[in-house]
């Protein structure tokens, strides 16, 4: 807390100067305020990389499978719906695999979490 303010002004004028005292109090109040309030920088949105290692490990275990399963499911439904078997399954399995890999890379923090306007 040695920020120089105490030495320069306050000590000289302290005995009779009410204004200096109140200014000091105000400064102290501001500093306390700043110290006690969690700032936006501390608690801003962060990537999943900060989650504990265990949480990340558990996350990785299912992300890839989920992507592939969704791809297969959509491909199969499209095949049944449009009668273009097996093309829907082939294409969407590949896309699903890509999505799964993307999920894993996000979960591992290799790629940033998505966000709007970025």
């Amino acid at each position, binding site marked *: 807390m040695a920020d120089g303010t105490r030495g320069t002004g306050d000590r000289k004028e302290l005995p009779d100067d009410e204004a200096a005292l109140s200014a000091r109090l105000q400064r102290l109040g501001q500093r306390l305020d700043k110290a006690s309030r969690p700032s936006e920088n501390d608690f801003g949105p962060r990537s999943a990389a900060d989650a504990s290692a265990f949480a990340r490990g558990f*996350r990785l275990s299912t*992300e890839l499978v*989920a*992507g592939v399963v969704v791809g297969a499911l959509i491909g199969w439904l499209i095949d049944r719906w449009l009668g273009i078997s097996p093309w829907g399954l082939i294409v969407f399995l590949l*896309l699903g695999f890509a*999505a799964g890999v993307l999920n894993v890379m996000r979960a591992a923090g290799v790629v940033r979490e998505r966000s709007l306007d970025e």
Partner: protein
Amino acid sequence: MAVDPIEQFQIHNLFPVFKIGHTDIAFTNSAAFMLAAVVGVTAFLVIGTARRGLVPSRLQSAAEIAYEFVATTVRSTAGSEGMKFFPFVFTLFMFILTVNMIGLIPYTFTVTSHIIVTAALAITVFLTVLLYGLYRHGLHFFNLFVPKGVPIYILPLIVFIEVLSFISRPISHSVRLFANMLAGHITLQVFASFIILMGGAMGALGWAGGALPFAMIVILIALETLVAFLQAYVFAILTCIYLNDAIHPGH
């Protein structure tokens, strides 16, 4: 005498409530344990915060720790604005944690070992993110699927992959919790059945040898306690990460 490791997950109707067409809607053992968890959490928080002493009692400080823990998780992953969803995340976390912990007590039923339960929770989170995102940002929300700085000729492919990745979320979200609880409880049951099998086959020597799987069960229970907590935590933190998408238009 073989022990069926799947038997513990069977649903029993306790008493019928009403009928839809020919389907009985009954109060099941699963519903009973859910109700027990909800009553337990509510009692814990209501009694814990009843006195609100400056010097907290044990229960009050436990309630405060639970609050602080979830609040820090929400703030650190979804930002201060994410606190709007604190009640939602806190409810999910406490419910899953309590249900998982109750499931570790012998002869109880683990609600989260049924995928329909975890899927319902995951779909609730998914729809919350989707609807709040649309409400908050309108159609601009779909820009989520269009990353900036991607060459135009590859963009349609990327959008497809991003959409698939988004749709896969509730699946990985629900399967993770369900599979971990299911696998853990099956493992416990299998090791427990080893004791009975050995005792039945080899008599006194078998019962003595049963000390080995029993020691394993003790270790596994410790692991399962950790998993029960971590799965609740992972579910909560992923909910926050998903909500972050809906809340933050840009950083």
